């Protein structure tokens, strides 16, 4: 109970600082829209490829953009941690009785809240331009949940790396190395069976692809719920592992101060 309350305080702090940055708000809200419309237009003809099963590319794309947005939105969370390290805020928190796990959990809750808002914007816009979600609200909820699980995992990874590296350059390099390639090695933009076979094999072990598969399966109908449950299970394990890593990273950080 105390742990949850602590995480809530940290989340409140993060949200307060973000809401005071108008540019951050504007970009956070507009970016997913740009992605949806840009990729939607760029890859429009993909549906004409023989063997492509979906008829509306924007509908096919929507779960992919929801997942990608979550990944990119939370994946940079470590930058805030580095800022806090440099500002002495992390040290102040570490000599308080607050739990290390709450300091990570609070940041992840904030990231998931932002993901929720961005996802709703994307889904509403997609609906306006013609995408339909046969499983209704339930499917959409599962889509947003898997996106949030994936985002939180990469957010935790990013925060842990921030504590280990403590340099923005390092974090930027690692995250650039991971985020975009993992997105393109998933079925976010392209039906998995039409990807080159080596990419299909990589996608099987790519967490971004797990989220895309589960989110698309749950929201676009004809759903194999046991597949969705399996992917959610994998993502939950990933989140637990990444959160444990981030919490442990405080020890390494404290050895170096």
């Amino acid at each position, binding site marked *: 109970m105390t742990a949850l309350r602590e995480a809530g305080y940290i989340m409140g702090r993060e949200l307060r600082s973000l809401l005071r940055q108008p540019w951050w708000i504007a970009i956070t809200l507009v970016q997913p829209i740009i992605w949806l419309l840009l990729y939607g237009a760029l890859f429009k003809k993909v549906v004409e490829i023989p063997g492509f099963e979906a008829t509306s590319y924007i509908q096919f794309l929507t779960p992919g953009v929801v997942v990608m947005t979550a990944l990119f939105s939370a994946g940079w969370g470590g930058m805030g941690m580095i800022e806090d390290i440099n*500002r002495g*805020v992390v040290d*102040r*928190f570490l*000599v308080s009785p607050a739990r290390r796990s709450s300091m990570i959990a609070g940041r992840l809750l904030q990231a998931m809240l932002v993901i929720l808002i961005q996802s709703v914007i994307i889904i509403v816009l997609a609906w306006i331009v013609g995408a339909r979600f046969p499983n209704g609200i339930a499917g959409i909820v599962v889509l947003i949940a898997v996106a949030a699980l994936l985002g939180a995992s990469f957010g935790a990874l990013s925060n842990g790396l921030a504590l280990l590296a403590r340099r923005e350059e390092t974090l930027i390099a690692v995250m650039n190395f991971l985020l975009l390639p993992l997105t393109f090695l998933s079925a976010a933009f392209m039906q998995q069976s039409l990807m080159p076979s080596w990419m299909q094999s990589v996608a099987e072990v790519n967490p971004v692809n797990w989220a895309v598969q589960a989110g698309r399966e749950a929201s676009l109908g004809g759903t194999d719920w046991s597949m969705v449950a399996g992917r959610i299970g994998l993502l939950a394990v990933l989140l637990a592992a990444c959160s444990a890593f981030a919490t442990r990273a405080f020890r390494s950080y404290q050895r170096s*101060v």
Partner: protein
Amino acid sequence: MAVDGHAIEADGLVKTYGKDVRALDGLGFAVPVGTVFGLLGPNGAGKSTAVKILTTLARADSGTAHVAGLDVNRHAAEVRRRIGVVAQKSGVDRELTGRENLTLQGNLYGRRGKGLAERVQELLESFGLADAADRIARGYSGGMQRRLDIANALVHDPDVLFLDEPTTGLDPEVRAGMWREIARLTEEQGLTILLTTHYLEEADQLASNLAIVDRGKVVASGTPEELKGELEGDAVIVELAVVPDEGAAEAAVSGVSGVREVLAEGRGVRARVNEGATAVPVVLAALESNGMSVASVTVSRPSLDDVYLRHTGRAFSDADEEGVR
């Protein structure tokens, strides 16, 4: 608090970073409850490392440390509840207002509701931040941010307060104001304070007990008066009109009665004497009669600067620059 009346006890603390940097080399000291204790030393002497270990942020390689009677390794969580920490670098949340900073800090110590709101208001008022309470801390001056740091450290009514270089980088006037605040804290609230500083004057003003730290070790400790008393006598500093012949000034002054030591360098002659007032005319006469005319003379009580010089063999300001480099 502590069984033996010590709020802080450090014994044989050793801390190395990597292979080459030995930040602490057997540091030990004890701070009686309710006093202000000064750790004085140049930059890089190991003061901040000591504070990090005592406040549970870092771990010593060896040695023991107790705060409020509790071992900092074994009872870190309980120690954290009992201490307030003002780090060398401000830990203010720049995107939050002063009031939000204090409220969050209280929350992290498990305080909330009306009791916390009242405590926050009380601190804002007593640290002169009431008018700026609802402004974003980014816009605060350096002095205001430092006062907010101290207020943050006091939200949960700690028993022991750590102030790591609280006035570094502040203007002289702001620094004097900060000294009054710190003095008030011990007088009114009976807090035990560990203060680190590389300002001799600050240690002299605030601390009832001092340890002089150099290269990770305590080289001298006691009250400021005791430390200065060890030196016995006053310093007479003479500036000559021209640079004398090698050894001439020493030869002229060292025979004078009441003079203990003489050191000449360039145009300056520094003599340690039993009593300044009676020695000055005799020293001056000795120099003049040997053909050295005097441009100026000053007499000073021994300062911590002299103590530092004596115990480390280096002038304080030189050591300080070395540490910065």
